[in-house]
């Protein structure tokens, strides 16, 4: 189960940074990037609450 949260955490952070790199390369639009960043944020916070102990 923990592996799943690690993977989701990585996905959340990946969705935060990778689409921005694609905007820089010209292969993604700015508005699509903002949507991916929002989804990445939600996934990161969900996964991080399971990965980082209080």
């Amino acid at each position, binding site marked *: 189960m923990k592996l799943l949260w690690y993977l989701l955490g990585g996905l959340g952070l990946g969705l935060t*940074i990778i689409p*921005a790199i694609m905007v*820089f390369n010209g292969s993604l639009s*700015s508005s699509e990037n*903002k949507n991916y*960043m929002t989804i990445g944020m939600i996934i990161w916070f969900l996964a991080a609450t399971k990965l980082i102990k209080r």
Partner: protein
Amino acid sequence: MKLTELTEQLNSVEEFEREPIPPKAIKKWTSFFGLYAGEHTAGTEFVIGPLFVAHGVSTGDLLGGLLVGNILAVLSWALLCAPIAVRERITLYYKLEKICGPTLTKTYNVVNGLMFCFLAGSMIAVSATAVGIPFDLPLPKLTDFYPNSATWVIIVLVIGLVTTLVAMLGYNLISYVANLAAPWMFLVFVAAALAVLPELGVHSLGDFWDVANTKIWTGTPLEGQSKFTFWHVMFFSWFCNMAMHIGMADMSILRYADSWKAGLGSVSGMFLGHYIAWTASGILYSIFLLNATDKLAFAPGPVAYYAAGVAGIVCVIVAGWTTANPTIYRAGLALQSLSPQWKTWKVTLIVGLITTIAALFPALVMKLLDFVALYGLLLMPMGAVIFADVYLLPKLNLKVEKAEKEKLAVNWAAGLTWILTLVFCLALNLLVGIEIFFLGLPGWFVATGLYVGLSKVLK
């Protein structure tokens, strides 16, 4: 009920406030990298990077000044603060009490507490610019001192109230949220800057330098702003945490380290936060300036929203909130030292009210560079006193930790050092015209010399 639980929880935490750290509590020096990275990627980064742009720094001056200044900051932590912290293994406050006496230490705490209030206030104002986006909040301007609309006042009051309540009841929660947000927040800074680079005309790394010089750090200040050079950037990045390294406040953290090398952990905070995040937020501000009708408008919320959408808004709110909240809590603890029997929640409530009133004034954000420099400068002389007491006084056969040994309420050698150093710095500023960013370095040498001299005279 909640308050009782929290008080019990806080009472059960062993912080070794008045005793050296026992060996079992000591941490490896490498564990300090994460701590510093989180601490220095925060709400202030959304303001400082853009203010460099507003002050017309050039690209070479910015990148060079940040490089040298941040290296000097890391060295200050590693070579000044950390060696004393691991040698003494007590908090700054306990060390000050031994050297300066309880009354002077309380004065220090009040000054520190008030500075914390203003810092937290500026972060509430930063959050307000993001919360205000759906309400069409009129953007504050670089030249604003007073609140510019009723909407601003209402939003700041609401955020201030919520922040204060959380600081009173849920400090642990907000510290947890800050830990969760830290890696994501850093990536939002980088991603947002990367995503706007094509709009500025950067389509490959090779384009960056030319575009940076013509559209980002152009070397021309905005109307009403002073011109910044390499030296401003270097001294600011070195001294913006002066209270922490040269001022020795981080003794309280670094006393847990197994070696002075823990001070080198600050490299993560300096280069992820004070290099990359400042540079990134400067890039974001430049695209905002290119599109803005009013070039003096200054609001981190809309800047981040433009580049990163909802994630940008959340990032500004979380960054501002997670900086303001622990700062209010620390300010409460500092002021509570005046009378330990005061209830923590009542002190935190009063501190929260002071902070919220301060946050109403946008000048606190617009003049953040000056405020941060002043904060470090005010507390720096006590760091010099500790340095001299630990290293110089024993070599000169002068009494160390005099207040404790002679049971003094005030060690006047330290008290006069503090006052005279600040008078000297004020005179340099008013009479010679030296800007606040440059006063820390001569001030430290004056403070060290004064303390040694006064200790000899008042022997």
